[in-house]
């Protein structure tokens, strides 16, 4: 059985990756929207995005829209791959448990 991804496994990071993965490739979410969708706090979300970014799983784009700073987070191809493998591993765990229980 494949190993679970240590970086994605943490609950909030899993939710961040799930949200970004639900978008078409190349599309991102604004920080405020991501915060609402994942139920995170500002500091918490920032720290976990930093961890995902260091792993190369998300890209962070900071820009000004008018006078307001806007941070957009996007899943990278590497991040999407890691997330897909993580989900497959979770499914394998459930399948293995079901097979073992029979």
């Amino acid at each position, binding site marked *: 059985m494949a*190993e*679970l991804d*240590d970086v994605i*496994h943490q*609950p909030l990071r*899993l*939710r961040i990756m*799930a*949200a970004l*993965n*639900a*978008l*078409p490739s*190349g*599309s991102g*979410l604004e920080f405020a*929207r991501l915060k*609402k*969708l*994942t139920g995170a706090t500002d500091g918490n979300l920032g720290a976990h995005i930093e961890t995902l970014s260091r792993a190369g799983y998300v890209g962070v784009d900071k820009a000004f829209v008018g006078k307001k700073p806007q941070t957009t987070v996007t899943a990278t191809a590497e991040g999407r791959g890691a997330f897909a493998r993580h*989900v497959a591993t*979770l*499914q394998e*765990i*459930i399948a*293995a*448990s*079901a097979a073992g229980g029979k």
Partner: protein
Amino acid sequence: MKLDSAEARKALADIDDVARRVRQSRIYDLASRVMIMWGVLVFAGNLANWLSPRDGGAIWIAVNTLGVGGTVTLSILDMRRTGMHSFDLRVAAAFVLYFAFGLFCSVVLGHFGPRQMGTFWPVYAMLFYVLAGLWFGRAFVAIGLGITVLTLIGYFFVTGYAFMLWMAVTNGGGLIVGGLCMRRD
């Protein structure tokens, strides 16, 4: 790292929940823009109809044409911006069939007068919102029911041409406020 099947199930359920929220957020984003646009048009249409009751037919043809054109334009712009299809062809086809049935009831079968027309179409349109809300989110249901009740209050209790002003505020204003609330959601 080891995980048992209950924890794995919980993680997958979490993923599904977030993905569902993202989809709903996309739908709310587009729907709120469409709703605000229709609200402005309906407000202007009722106001124009109040000022010039004889031109009601032309006013509402113009409102509906602008509304449908605007809806299609906003949908295309949204699709280009996000790369996602919030509404597909089946939804568009359902909308056309729904509209055709309303036309058949109100013009061919019903021979409705201006007051009945002014009540039927908002209530009928809000029924579409309520039905859509059963799939896409409670906000549609709340807005649909709220505007329906206000429309019926106007139909039964607001007399004469003041009915159009009532409809401008409750129907047009209701859609604008509903759309703005949806954007905050």
